[in-house]
């Protein structure tokens, strides 16, 4: 490999090389999205303008954008961390739900605590729930070879059943005339505050992303996780405990997803209600892939997706475009960013190293 010339090596070029494929992928999906809008009879320009206004137009809109971004950062990290170990944490959705319901429970069931204790307590409860739930596919993958994609998808559905049952049964909100299946509101002492339009949960998310970056880049644990993801055979040769690492990666992923669900419950929604948080786990996949599994990439792509979601309501109202177009654009972004070859061929770029995602093929039971 020849060393690059000075002009190829400055800070901006390094940044651009890392970011250009996702950036161009996003561009291409917006274009294709516009085409779909035209087909369905809408005006893409007014739609996108309304979208942008809805995302950043004023303090209220900005607050909503940041609220949408926060859980995406967590779920993106949950998926990205697992990717580093070569695992596909599609189960972030289920882990997130359990984290949300446990923190929601601790939020209303415990009374008389000061916020400085109640909030961390409820958050930790949610993290533990998510971590335990992530351990299941992790252990199964490590010790029986069961591919975590199927087991976690199944666990997602099981999580929906469990939380539905709890919301309609033992933990149901029976105050007043309520018949909806949901938990009671959390105590005021469990609510995560805001600083102006910025939810504190968002700040926590950024902090956690930095911590994850540090772990992956600078610690032995991170080195081992990366190694297992790239070559589990050589990692075993090197003496690393690969089964433990695989399980740990899923536990950490579950913890992060659970954290995200808890922050959402305690900071934005104020109670656990089935039907909220639907799809955040899968959005995490898009965010992780767009962000190339790097924590800072995750922050940026969460902001992007959060802005899209935040602005969607205004777009629906102003330009009369159904908000599901966001789902379509999201699917397209996912396609374009992972189909490196399409984007590269189109823009005649050369192959990037080191930023690919390595996920196991096949079902692992060989």
């Amino acid at each position: 490999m020849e060393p690059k010339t000075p002009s190829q090596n400055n800070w901006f070029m390094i940044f651009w090389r890392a970011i250009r494929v996702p950036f161009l992928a996003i561009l291409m999906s917006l274009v294709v999205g516009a085409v779909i809008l035209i087909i369905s009879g809408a005006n893409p320009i007014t739609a996108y303008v309304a979208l942008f206004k809805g995302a950043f137009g004023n303090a209220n809109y900005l607050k909503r954008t940041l609220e949408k971004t926060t859980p995406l950062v967590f779920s993106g990290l949950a998926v990205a961390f697992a990717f580093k170990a070569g695992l596909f944490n599609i189960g972030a959705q289920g882990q997130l739900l359990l984290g949300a319901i446990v923190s929601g429970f601790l939020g209303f069931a415990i009374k008389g605590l000061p916020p400085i204790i109640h909030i961390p307590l409820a958050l930790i409860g949610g993290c533990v729930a998510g971590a335990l739930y992530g351990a299941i596919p992790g252990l199964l993958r490590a010790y029986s070879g069961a591919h975590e994609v199927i087991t976690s998808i199944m666990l997602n559905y099981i999580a929906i059943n469990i939380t539905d049952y709890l919301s309609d049964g033992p933990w149901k909100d029976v105050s007043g005339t309520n018949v909806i299946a949901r938990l009671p509101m959390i105590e005021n002492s469990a609510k995560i505050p805001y600083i102006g339009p910025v939810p504190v949960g968002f700040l926590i998310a950024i902090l956690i992303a930095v911590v994850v970056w540090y772990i992956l880049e600078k610690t032995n644990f991170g080195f081992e996780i990366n190694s297992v993801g790239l070559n589990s055979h050589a990692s075993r040769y090197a003496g690393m405990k690969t089964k433990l690492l695989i399980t740990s990666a899923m536990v950490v992923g579950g913890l992060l997803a659970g954290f995200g669900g808890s922050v959402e419950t305690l900071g934005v929604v104020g109670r656990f209600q089935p039907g909220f948080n639907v799809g955040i786990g899968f959005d995490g996949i898009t965010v992780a892939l767009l962000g190339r599994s790097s924590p800072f990439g995750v922050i940026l792509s969460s902001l992007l997706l959060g802005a899209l979601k935040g602005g969607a309501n205004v777009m629906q109202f102003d330009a009369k475009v159904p908000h599901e177009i966001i789902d379509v654009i999201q699917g397209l972004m996912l396609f374009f960013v992972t189909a490196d070859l399409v984007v590269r061929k189109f823009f005649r770029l050369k192959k990037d190293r080191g930023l690919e995602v390595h996920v196991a093929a096949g079902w692992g039971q060989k």
Partner: protein
Amino acid sequence: MTAAQSTLTVHQLRRPRWMVPAILTVVAIAIAIISYLLNPSVTEAVLGATIRFAVPLILGALCGIYCERAGIVNIGIEGQMLMAAFTAYMTNSWTGSLPLALLVGALTGALLGLFLAYISVALKLNQTIGGTVINILAVGITGFFYQVNTVTKGKFAPIPLGPLADIPLIGPVLFNNPPITYLTFLLVIITQIVFFHTRWGLRTRAVGEHPRAADTLGINVFKTRYVSTMIGGALAGLGGAFLTLEGVGLFERNMTNGRGFIALAVMIFGKWNPIGSMLAALLFGFTNAIQTQLQFMGINVPHQFIGMIPYALTIIVVSGFVGRSRPPAAEGTPYEKE
């Protein structure tokens, strides 16, 4: 005599593959007969529901078999089913023609199969991610284009097969079914014959086990994978069309609800074998049918717990608690010529 000549074969651990499923099938039939003698109408209802639940699973598993036996891992079966359910439903609503709607559904699945094949073979993308893209796109597109008040004139009606339909127990259950159901069981038999007794089947299986060997013998690995994945897609499309044209009769957002993934477990349980998958699908269908029946009978278990059974069963199967299984050796890996 040298060592090489003295040992022409080393047969050690090959057990006959049919023992366990055969035993289980005999046991199941015995239970069915006993239960019929005790309570005919409930038994018929449960068995009928079993088949109704099993059909999309069988079709999904067959899709998986066509794809994976050729070497393509397809976790987008869910998305293929959902899209096909949607397009079949919309076609039915616009044209009123059920056969046309069925065709459209199958075509939708085949097109998505082409898409997956393109992603996997030409772009050499990670197939798991490719399948996920299909799933996410399907949810987005069907959600975006579906209008809530669409109506259709109806769905496929059962077609009794003459005097066969009058036989007690098996008559109404097996011989009085709507067309897609009959087609499904026919396809199981056809697939079994095709894969294990025809030239096409031998070559396709070779491509899934050792593509380079097939390549050196003049077999076109890429074309084989495209064809097989598209056929598989058409079958998944059939499964989706079943839901809106025969099973449920209407479309709902996300109506497939995990069936595409359960179909993968069915395929693994059935050891990538059409008949095995059919039996596994019937088992899963049965657990689903029991759930509804128990509710009718007023048994006091929260329905969510029964609802979890198929998913929990899938996890158990896939984790190898019912025996290890070997997938096609080359699946999931893009084939490189050099």
